[in-house]
Each structure stands twice: as structure tokens, then as C-alpha cells.
């Protein structure tokens, strides 16, 4: 059992501005833990978390994979970046935090270089406007407001994640049943050649949460 990262340094003021780890976060940690052997065996060199928030997930994977990995974190919310950085420090994991949207300024240098991509997106179905304004404001509501189907923000990233993944790259995504998991899986395979599996799923109150793992579908050579 790998301990949950120490978050005791974060205060209610931090959680007024940054998403506080909740059931979705903990399911994400459990999914990563269940993949721990495969993750280690894949010998990753670069790990990138989009929307790292409190920094809980990156600190957790940092404890699993150790110091021979570069851990990059991005968040549009500057408070979240500060929290991620302090959570890394608290848990003795070096996190490189960048205040930006998705992986935008990293795309050209990290093309097909990232071995582990992590994304717990704003997945809650809301009005289009609510999600749009939340992303614009770069505030805490941007951590959950997901617009139509809860997929407004996620879809933008799904269009580009293939460009980041290395050959052995894995992409972990948190999703909600209402996000239409089979449709996401089919679309990623058809349009981006990424096959996927549900690593874990759990009902937590009103939410039925899923953790998906995407990998590049290898060409099968038939004779």
C-alpha cells in the first residue's frame, strides 16, 4: 500500500482557490497503484500531469516511480500551480509546475516524448457558458465545470494527446459515466489509434467514476 501524499500543509484558504482532493482523486491514485508494476517496468523518463491542482496525483506517482523521472505539471490556475509545487516539496518529489493551458508551450519540444500523461479534467456536465467562463477565469470552478456532456475541456486535450505520447506512452484519464465512456474509447481508437481499458470504476455518491488508460495500438503484422 502506497501512502496518500501528505497534504497537511494545504489550508482552507488554499482549497478556496484550488480543487481539494476528493473521491475522483483517490480513485485516480488507486488506479495508478494497481498499475504500479507495469508503470515501473515501462521505465518512464517524462511524466506530465495536465491540471495538477493540489499536486496530489503527481506527488503520488513521484513517490511510486522515484527520482529518475521528470515530473511536469501544468494548471491554468496560478494558485493551483503554487499548491502543486508545495505539495511536491512536502512529499520530497520534484515537480516542475508551469502555469499554462493544457501542454501548449511544451507541445513542440515534447512531441512523442512523454511516457505518462495524467489528466483529471473538469468532467461535470454544465452549461457551455459556465465551462467557458470558468476556463477564462482560470479559477477553481475550472476544475469541474465541463460544459456539454462534461467533455468540453477534455475533448480539446483528446485531440492533441497522441502528439505527446511516446511509443510506450500511457495516458490516464478520469471520466464520468455521463461523459459516455464507450464513445470516448471508440473515438480515440478510430481517430487517434489509441486503444484503451477501464483500469478502475467506482460509484461515489452521485458520481460513477472511471479511470481509463490509453496506449498506442501496435500494428499487428500478419503473414
Amino acid at each position, binding site marked *: 500500500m502506497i501512502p496518500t501524499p501528505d497534504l497537511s500543509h494545504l489550508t482552507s484558504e488554499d482549497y478556496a482557490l484550488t480543487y481539494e482532493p476528493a473521491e475522483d482523486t483517490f480513485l485516480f491514485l488507486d488506479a495508478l497503484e494497481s498499475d504500479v508494476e507495469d508503470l515501473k517496468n515501462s521505465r518512464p*523518463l*517524462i511524466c506530465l500531469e495536465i491540471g495538477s491542482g493540489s499536486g496530489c496525483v503527481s506527488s503520488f506517482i513521484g513517490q511510486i516511480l522515484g*527520482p*529518475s*523521472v*521528470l515530473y*511536469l505539471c501544468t494548471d*491554468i490556475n*496560478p494558485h493551483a*500551480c*503554487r499548491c502543486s*509545487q508545495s505539495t511536491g516539496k512536502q512529499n520530497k518529489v*520534484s515537480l*516542475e*509546475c*508551469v*502555469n*499554462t*493551458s493544457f501542454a*501548449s*508551450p*511544451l*507541445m*513542440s*519540444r*515534447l512531441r512523442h*516524448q512523454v511516457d505518462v500523461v495524467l489528466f483529471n479534467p473538469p468532467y461535470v456536465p454544465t452549461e457551455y457558458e459556465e465551462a467557458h467562463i470558468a476556463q*477564462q477565469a*482560470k479559477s477553481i470552478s475550472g476544475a469541474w465545470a465541463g460544459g456539454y456532456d462534461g467533455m468540453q475541456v477534455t475533448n480539446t486535450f483528446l485531440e492533441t494527446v497522441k502528439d505527446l505520447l511516446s511509443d510506450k506512452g500511457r495516458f490516464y484519464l478520469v471520466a464520468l459515466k455521463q461523459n459516455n465512456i464507450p464513445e470516448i474509447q471508440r473515438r480515440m481508437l478510430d481517430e487517434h489509434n489509441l486503444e484503451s481499458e477501464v483500469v478502475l470504476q467506482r460509484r461515489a455518491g452521485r458520481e460513477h467514476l472511471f479511470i481509463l488508460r490509453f496506449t498506442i495500438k501496435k500494428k499487428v503484422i500478419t503473414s
Partner: protein
Amino acid sequence: MVRLVTHNLLACHAKDCNTNNFPLVFQNVQLEIREAEFNSDFIRNFLPKIEWNALVKTAYELGDTSLPQDQPEMVDDEFLKNLHHVLFEIHIIEGGMVCPNCKHNYPISDGIPNMLLAEHEIA
């Protein structure tokens, strides 16, 4: 935190800025040197990911001249230690990074680079 390893991965992403947009040039920076544990395997593995010319140019601009202009073919311990220092021990706490092409200035505050763009600047 902005260390040179991160800086070596960041390019200007403003709308229509696609050439000569890397490396960003540090400006008015406050540095701090913080010791980090030397991990020779990691550095060896990471070496192929580095844009060498950008790293050396940036290190020189920050006053560190320990790295050779050309990436050596033979990697020895002294070289790895210098590289470790440049990549992982120099922290940029305050200042900015300017795009050599469009001159967009990305501020750094509390060791966090602000790479956000205004809506009209997003590609």
C-alpha cells in the same frame, strides 16, 4: 519551479509564432542555487532529450560556462556533474522569459513560469 531542464522544454506558443520561438531568453532574473541529489542514470537517459545548443547558450547567459559548446561524444563523470548542476540546481525564482521571435514576455514569479496567453494571442 523553473530550472533549466524545464526551460529547455518550453517554446513560445503565441498565435502565429512558429519559427525562432525557442529557446526563450531569460530577462531580469533572480537565481537561487539549490543542491539536488546527483542521479547519473537519469541524466544519461535524459541527455538525448536535451536541445544542447539552447541549453549551453542559456547557461552562458546566466553566467555558467561549465558546459562545452558541442555535446561530447564521451560522457564522463565530471561532465555529468556539470550537466546535473546546470539542469537541476539553478533555479530561476523571479524574472521573465522573452520569445526571441515575437518578444512575448512570460513572467516568472515564485519560481512558476506564467505561460498563459490572452484570448487573442492563442493559436
